[in-house]
């Protein structure tokens, strides 16, 4: 039951790159992926910048072999999951008990939007192939099939904390001796549904977002996917390159304050972070870097910041929100940021919190504005907080 869960591989696609090395290069060189909206066909095109993956569905098809007619979410998911599996280099994959635990927030909504445009005119119209993968679970199954997963598939959807929950559910499947290998994370593509939804909440930034800045105005939406390959100790011992990172802590807590707003003192965030620390047996001062949830909204950043103050005061680790690079990728964010957290340990680096100008007046700390390297990063805390009060934190550690 107390078995260590190793990270054998990672994979990512986001607006700053189509794989690990491209994303890393952008992170190291402060290159944001947020731009003028290009692919999403929305009337708000000129109003809200977004962070779109720099490939159209046809290019994603040639990269993955999955039809470009399928949901973009499945295409993005497959790119990152394949990279993670390839990087893990598990030779006897087919003989192991394998699972795919994926997260997303709106399933195949990008295609459903096409369907419903016709359907609402006449309910006998609209091509069914565009709505057949509407369900979140369909996206997971399309990808699981391509990956050759045979033993277990499931999908988690807890808004913006979805893929953090997927990752630690995957870890628990290994701990409970149900599976040997789990590919876990999440994916989301940009849709008009979510863009308009966030617009009604008036939390979209018309400029490039500035997480944890006193003058922050809101978030920019993004898209992408991020996965980790988690393996048991038994599998880790068979790998050519032995993994040196483990998932050492995790916690899921609920803010129970409001359906969409965080409590001002970030109680849920505090419980998630402190719970993850407890699980890992680490103290706050052991954490070298926090990959913040840091959406750039007034509400999130003050809630998260207050919780960090309560937990870490007076010594603060380095911290930054990489959403200033990737936008808020919703159901994918926990997966993408888990990958970035792992890379921070592997590379000994801390990412800059881009566009940070003014420290928040309520907080005694400032996230890291610059790219830092040659550090010894041993423990990274990754935060994912979502609507519905769903707060989850993960801790990755060097072995």
């Amino acid at each position, binding site marked *: *039951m107390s078995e260590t869960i190793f990270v054998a591989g990672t994979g990512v696609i986001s607006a700053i790159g189509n794989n690990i090395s491209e994303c890393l290069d952008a992170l190291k060189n402060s290159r944001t992926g947020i731009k003028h909206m290009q692919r999403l066909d*929305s*009337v*708000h095109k000129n109003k809200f910048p977004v962070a779109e993956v720099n490939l159209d569905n046809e290019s994603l098809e040639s990269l993955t072999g999955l039809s470009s007619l399928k949901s973009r979410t499945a295409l993005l998911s497959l790119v990152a999951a394949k990279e993670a599996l390839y990087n893990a280099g598990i030779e006897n994959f087919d003989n192991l008990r394998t699972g795919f635990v994926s997260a997303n*927030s709106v*399933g195949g909504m990008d295609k*459903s*939007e096409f369907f*419903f*445009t016709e*359907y*609402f005119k006449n*309910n*006998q119209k609209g091509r*069914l192939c565009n709505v*057949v993968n509407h*369900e*979140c*679970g*369909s996206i997971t*199954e399309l990808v699981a099939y391509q990956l050759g997963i*045979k033993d*277990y*598939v*499931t*999908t*988690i*959807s*807890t*808004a913006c904390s979805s893929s953090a*929950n997927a990752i630690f*559910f995957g870890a*628990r*499947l290994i*701990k*409970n001796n*149900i599976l040997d290998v789990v590919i876990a994370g999440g994916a989301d593509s940009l849709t*008009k*549904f979510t863009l*308009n*939804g966030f*617009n*009604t*909440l008036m939390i979209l930034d018309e400029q490039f977002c500035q997480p944890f800045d006193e003058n922050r105005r809101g978030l920019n939406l993004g898209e992408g996917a991020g996965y980790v390959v988690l393996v048991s100790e038994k599998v880790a011992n068979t790998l050519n390159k032995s993994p040196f990172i483990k998932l050492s802590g995790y916690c*899921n*807590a*609920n803010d*129970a*304050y*409001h*359906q*969409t707003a965080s409590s001002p003192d970030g*109680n*849920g965030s505090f*419980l998630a972070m402190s719970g993850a620390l407890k699980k890992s047996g680490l103290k706050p001062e052991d954490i070298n870097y926090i990959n913040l949830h840091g959406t750039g909204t007034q509400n999130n950043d003050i809630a998260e910041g207050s919780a960090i103050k309560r937990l870490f005061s007076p010594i603060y680790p380095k911290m930054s929100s990489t959403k200033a690079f990737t936008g808020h990728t919703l159901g994918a964010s926990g997966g993408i940021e888990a990958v970035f957290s792992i890379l921070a340990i592997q590379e000994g680096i801390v990412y800059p919190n881009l566009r940070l100008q003014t420290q928040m007046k309520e907080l005694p700390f400032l996230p890291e504005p610059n790219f830092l390297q040659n550090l010894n990063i041993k423990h990274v805390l990754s935060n994912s907080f*979502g*609507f*519905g*009060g*769903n707060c989850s934190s993960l801790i990755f550690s060097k072995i």
Partner: protein
Amino acid sequence: MYIRATGNISPQHTYGHPLFLPELVEYVDNRLSCIEPDYKGIIDAKQIRRMSRIIRMGVASALECLQEAGIDMPDAIITGTSYGCLEDTGIFLSRMIEYNEELLTPTSFIQSTHNTIGAQIGLLLQCNNYNNVFVHSGFSFESALLDGIMLLREKEASNVLIGAIDEITNISHSILNRMGLYKQNRISNKEIFKNKSKGSIAGEGATFFLLSNESSNTDYAKLIGLRTFYKPQKVEDIKKEILIFLEENTITLKEIDLIIIGKNGDEKLDRVYDCLQSEIFSQNVIINYKNLCGEYPTATAFALWLAVNIIKFGKIPKAIDYNGVSTSKIKNILIYNNYLNKHHSLLLLSECKN
């Protein structure tokens, strides 16, 4: 694991009903709708107005379950829903398309997310504990159940609230109808297993359970095992999975007093069950349940509710069309369900030995 309490809003008289399904509520339609309680007195009037139908059903069912268990604050709230909050998703989508992305209001968007029901329960209880949501078609409820079982095993929780919620809306019904999931002829739910035809009847439900790793004196039943398997190629593979499951739980088919199967009246999909019935299940007492609740991805939750109540009441209810002779006491129940022959699940329950 002990099942201490249940809550169930379904197309039958299951909510707040002291009698155990004394008669089958008949539907001569391919759509079975939940019989909803009067929510006044269950949920605060101001909150009821804001909640959509699926949220009301989910919250009321969860509250009934907790009340029966005598637990104010569960250690975890885990929900499973395949389709999520369809009504609000439909409202937001239709307005977005009709008004060309302008003049939209946030309420339906906020309530469209799949975690809305779990979150509302957490909010109502002021429960800061573990809260998770599974959204994987015919595995949504089974995944939630597995999550809960693991939390209890890990000693991260001593009691967990687990539920499944899915609704039919006019939009989803018309689309799934076009996909050929439902019967095109008008037929009573009493007749679906007698007159076979293409398609099933649409169902929905909000069903909750309180699972605990410690026994109380009022538990319904013990949950012994859960196994899921995905897209088996042949009936032989299904048989194999069933036998592995029984072996894992050190029980034989002979010791199973009752099997609840997920036939849904679709002539093609039911063949799998027919095969099992004429082969490995041939010596067992078997009952169907989808004529009561209809077919939907989280229908196994209704089957589990039925099973634990059969153990609790010690009888098969009158609403179930059952030809077998009532034999000895029902101690062990096996549930075998598949959703569209893709998502297969097995559940094993036993009576609590006090």
